[in-house]
């Protein structure tokens, strides 16, 4: 029996009259890498926010490792051991790389241990040269990388990433891909992305969102070959 780390059941989210998510059922196994794709407005980011606790769903339930977490606040979900990275780089601009990563590690470890783990993470990400630099002075790609470090340093068993590759150079993307694969050794990873190139390079199973609902869920190759998915992406009527 494989452990289910994330499950949504009948998840529905409405904003006024707009239905952003409509009865989404999704299951994720331990150490699975899952990509959520779909055109703009398909509801994948809304789903992500519901799971991360940034939004409270109108209906339905969310379970993590069998525990219901519907309506929990982000910090409660993160405390379970869930690493979350939002769409735009969400870091402490006025603080150094080391201070940023230390704070993330401090949540689960003592101050001294947090420092050791932080330094180890900086080495792992090869950020040693800029460890004392304030985040605000770094390039976009470096900031994304630091944020991934913030997520990884907490040793999560579930990682939620919203468009991690957006606006990054090819070189940075390669590094990112490597880190994501490394993460899947210990954690299940959910990646929300619309860059097909990137998805092809990392994905196995893909869930396609369309008009707030799950259109299909299958291996990346079969999804890419599917005519309905192609139509959705090209804007034709499914």
């Amino acid at each position, binding site marked *: 029996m494989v452990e289910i780390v994330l499950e949504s059941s009948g998840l529905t989210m409405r904003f006024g009259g707009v239905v952003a998510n409509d009865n989404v059922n999704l299951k994720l196994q331990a150490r699975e890498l899952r990509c959520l794709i779909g055109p703009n407005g398909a509801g994948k980011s809304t789903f992500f926010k519901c799971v991360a606790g940034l939004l409270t769903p109108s209906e339905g339930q969310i379970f993590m490792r069998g525990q219901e977490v519907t309506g929990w606040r982000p910090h409660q979900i993160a405390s379970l051991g869930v690493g979350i990275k939002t769409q735009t780089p969400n870091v402490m601009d006025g603080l150094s790389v080391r201070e940023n990563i230390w*704070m993330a590690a401090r949540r689960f470890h003592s101050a001294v241990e947090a420092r050791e783990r932080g330094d180890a993470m900086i080495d792992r990400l090869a950020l040693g040269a800029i460890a004392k630099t304030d985040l605000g002075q770094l390039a976009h790609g470096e900031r994304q990388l630091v944020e991934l470090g913030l997520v990884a340093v907490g040793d999560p068993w579930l990682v939620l990433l919203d468009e991690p590759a957006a606006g990054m150079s090819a070189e940075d993307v390669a590094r990112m891909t490597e880190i994501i694969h490394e993460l899947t050794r210990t954690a299940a990873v959910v990646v929300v992305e619309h860059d097909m190139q990137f998805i092809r390079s990392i994905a196995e199973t893909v869930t396609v969102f369309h008009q707030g609902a799950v259109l299909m869920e299958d291996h990346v190759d079969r999804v890419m070959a599917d005519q309905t998915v192609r139509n959705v992406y090209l804007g034709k009527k499914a």
Partner: protein
Amino acid sequence: MQTPVSKDILTTLVVSAILIWLAPYVIGTYTLTVLIIYGMLGLSLGLIWGFGGILCFGQGAFFGLGAYTYAIAAINFGESTLPMVLAVLVPATFALLLGAMMFYGRLTDVYLGVITLVVTLILFKFINSTAGPQYVIGKARLGGYNGIPGFQTLNVPGNPDAYIWGDAYYYFCAVALVIVFLLVTFLLRSSFGRIAVGIRENEVRIALMGYDVAARKTVLFGIGAAIAGLAGALFANWGEIVTPTLFNMPQSAEIIIWCIVGGLGTRLGPILGAAGLAYMKFLLGQQSTIDNTLITGLILVLFVLFLPKGVVPAFSGLWKISFGRRGFGKMHDTRRKRRARHG
């Protein structure tokens, strides 16, 4: 990285000892005492605003609450030790309740400002309308607009007849400020303090790391109020009367101005800003050519426009450029906290 803790403490102690010894030769101790008290009040807002990103428009409320708590308790107990403790605890508790209401309600910037402002106004209006004999707490009449005069002032613990006043009271306040300053230093070096700075920089990120941001902001808010309450109690002892003007808007406004002029994100800035501006106001109050308020206003406008970081960070920056090291008043050297200041 940061200077070692021991060196920081040593510098603080040596510099403050010299200042405490020399200052009375320049300014009378009676005036100095109130400058020190204002410094402590400035530090209380400097802590929660400069390091925690919480812009409180009603820091004066906690100051007033501390002063009133002291006065009421001192009348009832006839000695000053327990009242001093209560003057710290009551504002802190009040702030914890208020903070929990605001921060768990996810109120930010302007809305936070409105709530703190409104609560201050409510306290002011309430205290101001308690002139009638029915408003009594124990033996203490609240007195409304008149305030409460004639309470027991600071005495040696256990001996209500041994008053600490005059020069002795000046040294008492100065030492109190040094202790509070050191406590704030420790707090900011602790994990709690460092994460508070993280919250100022990016609340969402800290929450996504798994920290309970609302709880942490509430606690920091409470600590700020405790310091303001202590300053209030010291002020009550200095003035020997408490009046509702402690709660009013201009009082809270001035605290914000002290912090801006002195420098946010530093420990020393708000203290120097408070003492400096209060002394300037005192000097200006003795002349009548130019209106006092006009100058205060002009200073605030000019600082926001031309020196928004305040005096201490500006000098600290100069020091850093000239000597290649940190100025002693600075900690967690941050660039301007755009997010915290601009919502």
